[in-house]
């Protein structure tokens, strides 16, 4: 059985590497495209923040996948949890590999949830699956691109009204850009309060939220003024220059949020295997050691480091029509929705949230051309990925059961 733990760590780690390699572009692409930072700097920032996000903010989503989809307490033994979690991991990984090979829309989040459902049904039938939770998670999948879209639309219109449509856009940038930037830190501060400092009330968390926000406000006022002092060109160029550099903050925010949400896709089944082997019981009460999350974070960071540069450079070159104010709004919306979902323990697709945010700015006539067809791909992903990963996981459960039990 310990062989399965080592194998689980290896596959989970590889999956984390794959997540880092593929999805890292989602976080830093706009900043690289805007030439605010070089791909090398983006890798460094993304690597560190993905790791921080995974390690410090990734626990709740990981818990949802580990024990929210399949109730371990309803399984007959810890061995079933071990081979079942392994089957879920293999099911998700193989489905992602096949889907990527054939160019099908695929989400690691949906795959792992499908994998967990598949093993649950194979192990103890339909009743072992916590369908209420599955429905909640599914609703969060539907809502995340929609919320991203609405958030980005409203935020872009707000930024337009306060800055771009003002009589003096440069003066308005001095006032409002620090507010926009620091509001990201307020949200991070709240998450820090809840997830790292483990405060239990909104009032206590708001100490961290306001604290982070005030420090960021002071820093961003200084930053905005110093950028504007050097900025050249007409007033809109100056505004864009401020947001070009601000995109480094929002891209970092996406990296942090992505790490927090997506680490679970690779590490939740590994955590389930680890806890089952450590305790020898089918229990839902044991908590995930932080170092397991850190291993997942390390895997994501390694994926960013090994493969992210090529992805970011290629993607960045294609984002020429995305101006900095638009890139800022897209990143801000995506990160806020993803981090918000993580705080509620909802495993959502960062990619789908990015699509929603871009479409939001598109509907606000903020970008030249946006592909609405991706909405169909998202819907297709909801309908195909979960059942497909569940079937693969179901089959693997019986194979592993035959070998090990």
């Amino acid at each position, binding site marked *: 059985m310990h062989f399965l733990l080592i194998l689980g760590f290896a596959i989970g780690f590889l999956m984390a590497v794959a997540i880092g390699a*593929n999805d890292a*572009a*989602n976080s830093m*692409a706009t900043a690289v495209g805007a030439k605010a930072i070089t791909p090398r700097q983006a890798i460094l920032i993304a690597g560190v923040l993905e790791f921080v996000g995974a390690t410090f903010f990734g626990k709740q989503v990981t818990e949802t996948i580990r024990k929210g989809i399949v109730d371990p307490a309803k399984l007959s033994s810890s061995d079933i949890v071990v081979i079942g979690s392994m089957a879920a991991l293999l099911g998700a990984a193989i489905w992602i590999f096949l889907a990527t090979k054939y*160019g099908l829309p695929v989400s690691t989040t949906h795959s792992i949830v499908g994998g967990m459902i598949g093993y649950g049904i194979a192990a103890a039938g339909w009743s072992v699956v916590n369908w209420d939770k599955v429905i909640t998670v599914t609703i969060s999948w539907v809502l995340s691109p929609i919320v991203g879209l609405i958030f980005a639309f409203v935020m*872009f219109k707000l930024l*337009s009204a306060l800055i*771009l*449509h003002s*009589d003096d*856009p440069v003066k308005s940038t001095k006032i409002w850009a620090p507010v926009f930037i620091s509001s990201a830190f307020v949200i991070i501060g709240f998450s820090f309060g809840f997830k790292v400092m483990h405060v239990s009330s909104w009032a206590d968390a708001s100490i961290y939220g306001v604290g982070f926000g005030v420090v960021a406000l002071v820093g961003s006022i200084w930053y905005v003024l110093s950028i504007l002092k050097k900025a050249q060109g*007409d007033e*809109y160029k100056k505004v*864009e220059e401020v947001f070009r550099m601000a995109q480094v903050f929002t891209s970092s925010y996406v990296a942090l949020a992505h790490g927090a949400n997506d680490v679970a896709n690779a590490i939740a089944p590994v955590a389930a295997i680890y806890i089952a082997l450590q305790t020898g019981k089918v229990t839902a009460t044991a908590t995930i050691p932080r170092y397991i999350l850190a291993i997942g974070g390390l895997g994501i960071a390694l994926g960013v480091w090994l493969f992210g540069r090529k*992805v970011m450079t*290629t*993607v960045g070159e*294609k*984002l020429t*029509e*995305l*101006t900095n104010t638009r890139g800022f709004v897209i990143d801000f919306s995506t990160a806020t929705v993803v981090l918000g979902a993580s705080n509620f323990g909802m495993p959502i697709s960062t*990619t789908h949230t*990015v*699509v929603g945010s*871009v*479409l939001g700015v*598109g*509907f*606000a*006539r*903020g*970008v*030249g*051309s*946006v*592909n*609405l*067809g*991706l909405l169909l*791909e998202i819907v297709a992903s909801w309908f195909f990925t979960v059942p497909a990963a569940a079937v693969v996981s179901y089959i693997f459960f019986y194979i592993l059961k035959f070998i090990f039990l």
Partner: protein
Amino acid sequence: MSVWDKLFGGTSPVELMIQHGLIVERASDLLPILWRKYIAGEDFSDIAKEIYDLESQADAIKLEIRKILHRGFLYRFEKHDIIEYIRVQDRIVDLIEDTAKIMGLNYVELPEEASKKMENLIDCIENMMDVLKKALKELRNVLESDFARREVGKERQLVEEMAQLESKIDDAVYDFGKWLYAQKNTMNPVDIMFLRNLVLTISHIADATENVADKINSMLG
């Protein structure tokens, strides 16, 4: 393929519309030179060739725009508006090309009075095209500012300026036409028909430019 690759359609059609317009304007810059060479009886084949080349470049952009307008994509302007816009803007460069071709068919020596009237007409066309160039550049600000009222206002002012120039051009065409028909007893009828054709083609440039201005106005909403 990353999600970013799929999300955006590559080059923005509005940017291509602007590039196309700037090529059209460059072609219009050659009209006064073309006329001066024509009236001086000099060889203007080099200028005509330059105009034909610009027309080809404009055509290539027009085709590219049609190629990049994908189904299922959301654009800043309606797809049919973009196609219609590029059609009317392309008509300008086609007419400039036609003007160069017509000039190559026949040479008519004009008295200074008529030559000045024609020069005035061509200068007016060039002025109108300069305003179009400004309007196209302003369009970038309109988009960058997310259709800020003051930028839209500036754009509409330029559109209005083009309309005023078009009416000035109508006067200049009428003025030349009046002179032309006054020559019915002295000028070769073929030359009269030739000059009539030439001046009407040039006046159509102004009409086409005004159509572009109207289109910009309607696209601003």
